[in-house]
């Protein structure tokens, strides 16, 4: 059984920073329907680890939904939250948050509700600056890519009662806000309230989360050469800096491969000539690593 911890209505034009402990669920629900919400989250113990659209998009595509995770940015790359429910199935990780400049430059507003400023105002409760707002997980936002590769936003499909549930997999500062767009189609030309609930997850909720592997490359501050967070705004060169790039220099070794007639014929058939011309060595290298990628013989 889930236990309700907190419930409130998020009013138009506002957002709220919420401390969510590992094992708690944030449920965001449509009241009237048709309302886009933007969402940011941070590791509560280290705000420099935060939800990353790019990492999430790479693993789950441009419309993350039930069964997907919210991942933190490289070099952390940990699952921060898990999408337990998504009844509208219209979320986006392509578009950046809307901003005051958008409403000024396109519509001429001196002031207009916008996700950047609403997020910044909500995050200010925890001492974060406007620069700490990052690209959001856009909930209840219908987007796509057209045949020319251009991204677009279209009208909302969500109905009253539609909801997204996010299970915290670590302690997070979760920041939902009502998208400020009322002169764009994102929320069908209105700004409406939304219902927010926090629950303690049930055993059934935990059981829904697929097992996660941990990796050495999910870095922590202990792995960093620079551990302290800068406070000076101006950048200055470290005179003692010596580059320590990994695995450098990159050195190529020429390796002779004797191919029999059958293998040579195979190379002739498989070689990507449009890519490599008559450079058989490069064509063979492509085949070897393409085979590896496609079959993953180890690991």
């Amino acid at each position, binding site marked *: 059984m889930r236990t309700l911890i907190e419930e409130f209505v998020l009013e138009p034009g506002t957002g709220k920073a919420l401390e969510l402990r590992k094992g708690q669920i944030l449920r965001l629900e449509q009241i009237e329907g048709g309302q886009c919400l933007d969402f940011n989250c941070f590791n509560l113990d280290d705000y420099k680890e935060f939800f990353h659209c790019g990492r999430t998009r790479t693993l789950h595509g441009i419309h993350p939904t039930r069964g997907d995770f919210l991942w933190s940015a490289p070099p952390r790359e940990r699952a921060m939250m898990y999408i337990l429910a998504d009844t509208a199935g219209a979320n986006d990780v392509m578009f950046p948050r809307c901003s005051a400049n958008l409403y000024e430059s396109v519509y001429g507003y001196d002031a207009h509700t916008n996700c950047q400023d609403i997020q910044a105002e909500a995050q200010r409760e925890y001492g974060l600056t406007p620069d700490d707002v990052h690209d959001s997980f856009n909930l209840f936002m219908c987007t796509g890519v057209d045949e020319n590769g251009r991204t677009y936003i279209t009208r909302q499909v969500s109905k009253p009662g539609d909801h997204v549930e996010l299970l915290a997999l670590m302690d997070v500062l979760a920041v939902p806000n009502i998208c400020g767009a009322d002169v764009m189609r994102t929320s069908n030309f209105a700004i409406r309230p939304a219902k927010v609930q926090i629950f303690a997850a049930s055993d059934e909720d935990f059981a829904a989360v697929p097992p996660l592997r941990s990796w050495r490359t999910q870095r922590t501050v202990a792995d960093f050469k620079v551990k302290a967070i800068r406070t000076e705004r101006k950048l200055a060169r470290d005179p003692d800096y010596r580059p320590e790039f990994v695995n450098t220099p990159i050195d190529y*070794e020429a390796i002779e491969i004797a191919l*029999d007639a059958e293998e040579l014929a195979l190379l002739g*058939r498989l070689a990507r000539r449009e890519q490599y011309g008559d450079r058989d060595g490069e064509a*063979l*290298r492509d085949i*070897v*690593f393409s085979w590896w990628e496609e079959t993953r*013989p180890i690991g």
Partner: protein
Amino acid sequence: MAETTVTIHLNQQQKDLLDRTVAAGVAPDRIALIRLALRRYGELHAEKG
């Protein structure tokens, strides 16, 4: 059987992946693995009849 030599240039990271694949028992050595990869890739992408 007639043999032809092809020269493949591999960097240390590429060799590392192949050598770990060899160590896992996929092929007896790096060169055998490269030849195996070619044959297996040929099977995966067989000519359509």
